[in-house]
Structures are given as C-alpha cells and as structure tokens.
C-alpha cells in the first residue's frame, strides 16, 4: 500500500534527521581540543602522576564564573586549557600558558578572560567566541590594544603595568581631547590653550595666517591640531581674532613694556640658562618639549608682549603651566633682549608682526567660523566656555558595535571598531565631507596609544569592587599665602604631590618634608642647583625671596610628611655614636659609589652624597635604605635587604657628610 510505504519512509527519514543533532553535539570541536590537550600535556608533564592526571581529566565545558563582574561567564578555558599551567609555557595555541601579567594567570578566577580580551565569553565554538562568525557577539580585541582592558577598571592617569594606556591617556590630556568630548570622570578637564584676548597685541596677521595653516610647521611642540582650513576661513579667523578688544590691563602692560629700553642680552643669556627654560620649552629641538619651541619666538610675538608675559604669564593665561619668575624689572628686560637677539626667524618677512587692518565683515564671518570648528572649546570665547561639549561624549565608545559606526567613504577599512577608531584618530576628516574634527598628526605609536585609551571607555561602569580610582590625595595644598606661592611657582607643573601634578621632575613632593632638612630646603629654593647631574630637566632658579622660600619650606616640613619615616632613627644619640666607620665600610662594600658622587669620585646616576648630612634627614636615609622601591617603584637604587643595624650605621655615616654649602652649589 503506497501510503504505508510512504509512512515508513518518512519515519526513517525523520529518525535520521533526529539523529543529526545528537551527532553534531557529540562531534563539537572543543571535545577534540580537549583530547589533543590531554595527549600534549601528558607529554610535557613533569611527573608520571601529573601526566596521569592530565590524561584522566574528563571532557567537559570549563568556565570561569564572575558573579561580581556583571555575572560574566567565560568559557575560553574550554579550549585554552593550558592558560594557568606552568608546563604549557610555550605550547602551541590554543594550549599555551598565559604570559604573566599582574592579574593572570594567578588571579584568572577573579578577572576571567573577556574583561581584557573581549569576545563572546560564553561561546564554546571558535568562530562564536572570537566573534568571527557573522552572527557572533563582540569580537576579540586585537592584542595591540589589549591594555584597554586595564583601563576599564583603572581610572588613574598612569597605570604602572600598562605603558601604552598611560601614554594614550597622557596624549589625550595633552592634546585636549576632553575639551570637545565629554567623558565620565573628565568633567573638570580644562584645556591649557591660551585665551586669545591678547592676540591683537601679541602677533601680526602674517604670523597668524601661517599658524592657522599648519600649527605644527610653525611650532613642532604645538598641541593645536590642523583644522585644514580654507584660505577664506583663515582670513576670516585672522580678522576675528585680531579684531577683538584686548582687556585694558593687558593692553596697557604690553604697551608699557614695549616702550621700555632694550636690556643687556649677555646677562639675559645667563638668566635664560639659569631659569632652566628648556626644562619645559625647547630651543631648536633641545629641551623637554611640553611647552612651545622658542627659537623663533621673537618673530611670533612682539617685544612688549614677550616682556609682559615673562613678568606675569598668569595674567595672560590662568591655566598655563609656566611659573611666574621673580625677575627684577631689569632682569626680565635682559632675558627678553636675549630672546629678541637670538630667537628670531631670520627668513620671515619683515611685516610678520605687522598689525592687521581689520575688516569688520570678515571678522563677523570669522566669529561664525570660530564657533563652527569649536575653537572655543580650548580657547574659550568672549562669552566664556559653553557648558555643552562640542563633540560627542566618549563614554561607551569602547563597546560600540561596528555595525553602528559610519564608515562613510572609508571603504578600505575592515569593518571593525578598532580599525574605525584608528582611522578616526589618524585622519578624522577622511570619512565624509563636512566633518569638523581636526587632524592631530599623531605618529602610529601615539595613534595606537590613543585608540587603546579610547577603547577603555566602556558603556557600563565596572562594579565598585573592581574599580581602581585615583586615590583622593590625602595631602591638601593649603589655601592662603602658601597656596598662592605653590600656584605662582607652578610647583605642580613638574612635581607630583599625591597623585596630582606633572611628570617632569623625578622628585615627588608628597613626602618632601620627611626627606630633606628645612635649612637646606630654604637655601635650595632661593638658589637651586642640579641634584642629579644626569637629568636634563632641572629645577629653575626662580629668584625667590628668602621670606617666600622660608614660608614654603615651613609648609613643606609641616604638611608633606610620611609617617613611615622615623623622626630620629638614632633615638637621641649623636650620629657619631652609631658606628659611622662601619657605615663607611658598608658604603664601599655595597658599591654605592658606582652611582653616587662622594668627594671627587663616583658615578653620576644618583644624587651626589657629598652634602647628604646637610641635605637629608637621617630618618629618610634610613627609611630609604630599608627599601628604596617603597618610595618610588621605578627607582634603580638596589634594595640590599639591610638589617636595621647596618642601615642605621650607613645612615649615620651619611649623616656625618657635610660640605661647605658654597662649594657644593653650582651656578653663581
């Protein structure tokens, strides 16, 4: 009967179809991986017992469950079976042991895999887990950007084990990304770019046109990006900027300074070098480079403006990192005279600083252009900075799906978030016509660093227990006179206090009060000298009056102290009672002289110890000797593991070293 035969046939076909799914289930790829792993691991095992354990491991799905971290489930270890096994070091993928990081493989149970590597944690097939399948979840993060994972939890500016991320964050800060783009935790960001109100008395139209065309060509240290402006836009902007009203006090200061007689360039040269300008600026590329190149500055700014600015930079730009030196009227004239003589662009046209005859129509159009490109985000505007950010917020950019991104004309790019971000950072205008983000001209390494920092902006904040926040600095800088002095001399531009401050100096001030003796500090502030001869960036001579120095030293001694440093390690005895002779023997035996100068001999990596009895507090020397890395993680001074007794003797020896201050000091 045909209907019965049909029924029989379809029944058989149905059974076959039903068998397909269990068969596929039994042949899933992770099972094969686990069998291969058992063989490989057994062959690498260190003992017969270990080999047997590897062989006996049942085939199963492995997972790391992180209930604290969004209930994450990572099953990567189902195939990557050797991540935490020392015997699998150097094994072929996917079985290799994970390279050491501060969190892996030791605490892999707390951090899982996808918190750094992204990808689809719960998946058990390669294409789904790595995000290569068409319907897969988030793709794996390329290893080049892996430090973005650190940044999800660590919101401090520098993350010790993540140099690329730290670099990216520093670059983003320096180039003012957060002036236009909002981000959680960066609400207080302010660009250090100068307000433009004094521009009409500072420079001329020719210079400004050059600057607007390509800021980096004028000053290689410039952080201002290239807005790729058209000639007309440049003309409009020049008219707008140079047509502004200069605040009366600034205009008067510049005019008065311009009328002063010329100074003594020879003395100016000496002052220029004493003031250590190149600790921040460069001269023909030599110097630290966070501040403008000075070799052509006299062709960029009028003499009056330069002089007024050197005398009081904070009046022109309240956010500048430049300290206000305590130059006398004559001294500042001399410094500017030196700059006028030497730092000139000899190829520049004569009229480079000629004032512009402002065209009102162009100036009005210029105001629109100024707003159109968001110039006010960094430079402010007569109406003040706007509360609303010019660009889109960056929160969640690290979790954007590639499908949601506008690739526009960039058909050459792979459709991934990382490729999009790298292209956006590298050439922002290449995606479509009419985009406004300017080109920063980053080199490939900077681009990689910035993309890493960007990828760290997740859409969801990580749970509290995983977050590493910048520690609220326990050291407050007092208001009033001392605060004013710290601000005037811009201590924080170079030094760190707590976790605030710049990275130009290698000497944080956080525990300076426990470290140096007050009398030495006062002398040093009045007339500083180079402590570590190997460093190019040195403490400037501010010509600080002695009262100010005393005040600062008092504040430092009171406030910037660390309880780990003993007040008096000798417990009332004089240093000479603690066997300094044995200390001297230790000094020689430990080879301290290879880095430190003492007397006429020694290496110049570390600070000279010739006057250590005058400079350092014995408590500090003792605490330092007990473990230099406790005070600065990256310091090269070895931890010899000295006993208290030996450390004390060495401290006593160093405390007896005094040199007449006059001989120790360089400079004058």
């Amino acid at each position, binding site marked *: 009967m045909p209907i019965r035969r049909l029924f029989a046939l379809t029944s058989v076909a149905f059974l076959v179809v039903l068998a397909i*799914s269990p068969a596929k289930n039994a042949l899933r790829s992770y099972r094969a991986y686990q069998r291969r792993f058992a063989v490989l691991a057994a062959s690498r095992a260190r003992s017969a017992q270990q080999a047997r354990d590897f062989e006996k491991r049942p085939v199963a799905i492995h997972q790391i469950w992180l209930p604290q971290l969004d209930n994450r489930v990572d099953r990567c270890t189902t195939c990557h079976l050797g991540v935490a096994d020392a015997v699998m070091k150097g094994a072929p993928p996917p079985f290799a042991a994970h390279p050491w990081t501060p969190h892996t493989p030791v605490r892999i149970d707390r951090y899982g895999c996808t918190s750094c590597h992204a990808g689809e944690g*719960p998946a058990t097939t390669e294409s789904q887990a790595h995000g290569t399948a068409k319907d897969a979840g988030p793709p794996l993060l390329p290893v080049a950007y892996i430090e973005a994972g650190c940044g999800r939890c660590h919101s401090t500016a520098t993350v010790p084990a993540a140099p690329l991320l730290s670099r990216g964050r520093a670059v983003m800060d320096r180039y003012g990304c957060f002036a236009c783009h909002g981000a959680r935790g960066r609400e207080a960001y302010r660009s250090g770019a100068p307000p433009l109100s004094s521009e009409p008395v500072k420079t001329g139209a020719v210079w400004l046109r050059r600057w607007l065309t390509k800021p980096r060509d004028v000053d290689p240290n410039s952080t201002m990006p290239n807005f790729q402006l058209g000639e007309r836009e440049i003309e409009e902007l020049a008219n707008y900027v140079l047509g502004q009203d200069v605040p009366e006090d600034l205009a008067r200061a510049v005019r008065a300074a311009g009328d002063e007689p010329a100074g003594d360039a020879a003395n100016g040269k000496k002052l220029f070098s004493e003031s250590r300008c190149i600790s921040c600026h460069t001269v023909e590329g030599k110097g630290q480079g966070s501040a403008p190149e000075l070799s052509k500055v006299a062709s960029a700014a009028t003499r009056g403006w330069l002089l007024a600015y050197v005398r009081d930079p904070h009046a022109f730009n309240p956010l500048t990192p430049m300290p206000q030196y305590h130059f006398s009227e004559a001294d500042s004239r001399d410094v500017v005279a030196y700059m006028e003589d030497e730092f000139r662009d000899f190829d520049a046209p004569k009229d480079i600083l000629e004032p512009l005859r402002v065209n009102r129509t162009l100036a009005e159009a210029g105001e629109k252009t100024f707003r159109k490109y968001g110039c006010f985000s960094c430079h402010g505007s007569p109406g003040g900075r706007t509360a609303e950010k010019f660009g889109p917020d960056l929160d969640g950019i690290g979790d954007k799906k590639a499908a949601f991104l506008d690739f526009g004309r960039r058909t050459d790019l792979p459709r991934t978030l990382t490729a999009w971000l790298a292209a956006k950072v590298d050439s922002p205008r290449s995606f479509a016509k009419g985009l406004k983000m300017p080109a920063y001209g980053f080199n490939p390494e900077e681009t990689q660093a910035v993309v890493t920092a960007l990828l760290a902006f997740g859409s969801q904040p990580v749970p509290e227990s995983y977050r590493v926040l910048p520690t609220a600095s326990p050291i407050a800088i007092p208001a009033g006179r001392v605060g004013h002095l710290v601000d005037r001399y811009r201590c924080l531009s170079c030094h760190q206090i707590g976790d605030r401050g710049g990275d130009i100096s290698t000497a944080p001030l956080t525990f300076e009060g426990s470290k140096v003796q007050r009398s030495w500090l006062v002398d040093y502030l009045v007339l500083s000298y180079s402590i570590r001869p190997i460093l190019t960036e040195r403490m400037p001579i501010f010509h600080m009056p002695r009262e100010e120095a005393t005040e600062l030293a008092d504040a430092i001694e009171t406030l910037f102290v660390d309880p780990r440093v003993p007040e008096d390690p000798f417990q009332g005895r004089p240093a000479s009672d603690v066997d300094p002779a044995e200390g001297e023997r230790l000094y020689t035996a430990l080879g301290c002289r290879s880095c430190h100068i003492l007397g006429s001999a020694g290496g110049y990596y570390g600070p000279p110890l010739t006057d250590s009895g005058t400079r350092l507090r014995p408590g500090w020397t003792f605490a330092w000797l007990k473990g230099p890395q406790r005070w600065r993680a990256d310091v090269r001074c070895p931890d010899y593991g000295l006993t208290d007794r030996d450390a004390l003797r060495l401290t006593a020896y160093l405390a007896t070293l005094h040199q007449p201050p006059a001989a120790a000091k360089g400079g004058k």
Partner: protein
Amino acid sequence: MTTLSLDSVFRRLRDTDAWRSVVRHGTASTNRNRSLVVFENLFLHVHPVKVREKTLRFTHTYWLGGIALACALILVATGVLLMFYYHPSVPQAYRDMKELEFVVDNGLFLRNMHRWAAHLMVFATFLHMMRVFFHRAYRPPRQFNWVVGVVLLCVTLLLSYTGYLLPWDQLAFWGVSVGTNMAKEAPLVGEKARFLLLGGNIVSENALLRFYVLHCVVLPVALLLMLSVHIWRVRKDGGVQGPPEAPRGKEEVR
C-alpha cells in the same frame, strides 16, 4: 517451548486487570467494541468512529489541518523544554538564548524545531483556511466551526508574534516596537491597547514579562481549548468528508 505469537501477547496484555481498568471494554475486536473504545475515551472521542479511506487521500484536504495540529503538538513539547532554560528578564533572556546554542545539549536543535514548527504552523493554518474557503467547507452546518477556525488563526498569529519578542535581540525589540506602534494607531483604544500590551510606554522588561506570560500560558491554553472545540466540531459536523451533499442546482454542476 511454546511459540508466542505477537497476537497472543497482545491478547494477554489486554486481559490484564491493569489494562481493563483503563479500557473498560472486552477484547473482542468487533466493530461495536472498537466504536465503544473510541466513544468512551476522552482523547479519542473527538475523533470520528469511522473514517472513510477516501477522505484520507492527500488531495482531499491536503492534510493541512493535521499538519497544523502536528506543529501545535511539537510546539507544546519543545516549548515546555525551552521554558526550562529561559528567564523572561532583561539581563538573562538573550544570554539564555545563547546558552541554548553554546552549552545545552541539542539546545540549538530544540530552539530551531520550535522556530520552524512555528513558521510552518502559521503557514499551514493559512493554507488550511484557504482550502476550507475554496472548498466551500464553511457552509452550514460548519459555519460555527469556521468561526472557531478564524479565532484559532488569530491565536496562532498572536502566539507567533508574542514569541518574536522573547529572544530579546534587536530584531525582537524593533519588531515589537513597530508592532505595538501599529496597535497604537487603532482608533479610540489604540493608546490603551499599546499600554496594555507593553505594560508601559516603551518596550521594556514589563513588555518582556507580559509577552512571556501571553506566549507560555494565556495563548497556549486558549489554543488548546479552541483546538479541542474545533476538532470535536469537525466530528460533530460529519467528519472531514462532510455531510452527504444534497442534490445541487444547475450552477453548481457546471
């Protein structure tokens, strides 16, 4: 050794007390007895006692109602299994969908069965209705069953639609956004209907929960109830072959 034929084994089985406690009719394989077994059984009584072989021919009904019924049964079976793995909550729903693929044994097969059976059921139900229409099988005495059938079609479509949201993926989210916005355009009750469906003004976890309850409890119960009536009515109205046709007028002979 005595040879045991299959027949004798069955006969003995039917004589056991346990069997007789369930099927209360004798072993005699008479037509009467067979009819009685069907009459007295809750599950079989909706079925006609006698089926003519002619009506089982494929071309007679294209088996469309049967296919829809089979789909419904598959959907209930796979649906119950899926419910073991699914949480109707926002952080969990999509993840559970993925878990079916990643770790549940035959999970993807289970889900695909449910999905394809659902598609097929909608398709078969439509065709079934068209077949009934073009065969003029909606005429008295089956006019009531036609109405029941229309209700069943609506329930089927609603089941299909409410199931659409449950994976909680982009397709689901926007599908339901569009669908409920269409409901909003209905005159007078539109706004209220949308609010009632979503349990709020946006597609959120309330909507997910509502659609889940509708999909897994309210609508299936309605379906099974109406389905029983529908099949029972088929039998009452003369089975798939229908009542004997009265002699037709001229136009109908043509």
